[in-house]
């Protein structure tokens, strides 16, 4: 019954080692400089990533020439590389990162007042991993629902599971997509982080996103409505060198009105989330790393 989710492997031991050496020798900006070449490689040879990125850029920047569209994709690849380098540096203890945190008091209030935990909905925008360190203050266990990283080099060097004992993984690739474990953790009062923007093979609903119908996974919203727990949308954005904004201000409380057609009742809450993402990409167009055609129904 467990589903194996197929995802293309990117990055190898040698490549990541080169980035790490450059970071150690020349600092973050030195490592960033490599990205300009590496991103050309991905632009030319990683058709899957380019196709996924074009689905976004064509909607965000309408009616552009072939060259301009691909230039935007190139910019996105560079920015994602910067996010990964920052992630490595922050997790490795490099000093000087500053976080402008918005709405964290509401999160603390929700987590401390409710016996139940909450769902933190993350997205492929900004650099959500760097924000995890901010959550340590909650003094709760944080669980990430994710596909186990099967690229050993990425796992080792990007310190995927490195936020200490407070951050743990719930695997998507287990029976019932990890839902039984999620229920247990939320009932225990813990925080479970679920990606809200990639559906993989899981149930989804169509919502309006960037002017088109996009299929977003309804898992987080259905679990929240069924368990009667809040959803906190986590947004992060890079504002400058080593400077990030972490925004917890968007709180959604999914609720069923009746027992009829429950999944469709979640649509309005998912639309709220899509609107939050829509506003985000308006403000930070080069920090959307979705790289998947969520508008494609097949």
């Amino acid at each position, binding site marked *: *019954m467990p589903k194996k989710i197929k995802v293309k492997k990117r990055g190898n031991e040698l490549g990541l080692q080169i980035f790490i050496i450059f970071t150690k020798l020349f600092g973050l900006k030195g490592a960033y400089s490599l990205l300009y070449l590496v991103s050309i490689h991905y632009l030319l040879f990683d058709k899957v990533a380019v196709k996924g990125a074009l689905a976004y850029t064509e909607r965000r920047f309408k009616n552009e020439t072939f060259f301009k569209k691909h230039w935007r994709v190139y910019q996105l690849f560079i920015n994602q590389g910067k996010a990964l380098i920052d992630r490595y540096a922050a997790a490795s203890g490099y000093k000087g990162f500053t976080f402008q945190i918005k709405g964290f008091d509401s999160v603390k209030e929700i987590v401390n007042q409710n016996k139940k935990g909450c769902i933190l909905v993350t997205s492929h925008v900004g650099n959500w991993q760097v924000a995890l360190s901010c959550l340590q203050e909650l003094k709760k266990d944080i669980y990430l629902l994710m596909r186990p990283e099967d690229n050993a080099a990425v796992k080792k060097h990007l310190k995927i599971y490195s936020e200490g004992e407070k951050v743990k993984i719930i695997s998507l690739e287990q*029976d*019932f997509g990890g*839902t*039984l474990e999620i*229920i247990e953790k939320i009932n225990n009062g813990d925080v479970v982080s679920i990606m809200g923007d990639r559906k993989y093979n*899981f149930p989804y609903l169509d919502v309006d996103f960037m002017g088109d119908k996009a299929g977003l996974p*309804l898992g987080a919203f259905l679990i929240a409505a069924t*368990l009667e727990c809040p959803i906190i949308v986590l947004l992060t954005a890079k504002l400058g060198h080593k400077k990030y904004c972490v925004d917890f201000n968007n709180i959604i409380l999914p609720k069923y009105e009746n027992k009829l057609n*429950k999944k469709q009742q979640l649509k309005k809450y998912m639309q709220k989330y899509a609107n939050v993402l829509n506003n985000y990409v308006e403000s930070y167009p080069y920090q959307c790393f979705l790289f998947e055609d969520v508008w494609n129904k097949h």
Partner: protein
Amino acid sequence: MCEENKELTEMREKLKVLLVDHLSLEDIKPEDIKDDEILFGEGLGLDSLDAVEIVVLLQRNFGLEVKDMNKGREIFYSIDTLAKYVVDNIKDNAD
């Protein structure tokens, strides 16, 4: 023995009604669900999110918690296995 069978039969019927009611199963009536029909994937076609509803339904209606993933796979196999789990565990809780 006869009493136990009656209890199981009643529980199966009760669970079928609860599933149809809570899972918004379109065009399916409780009596359409066979006792040994596989609930997830092939068979009734429930998905991982329906498991959330079933877990909560068991908590709210019978005070039962399913935490063990491996047990979950066995318990949620069919109406038969689900009913047996509920009947056995309600008894255990009462003892």
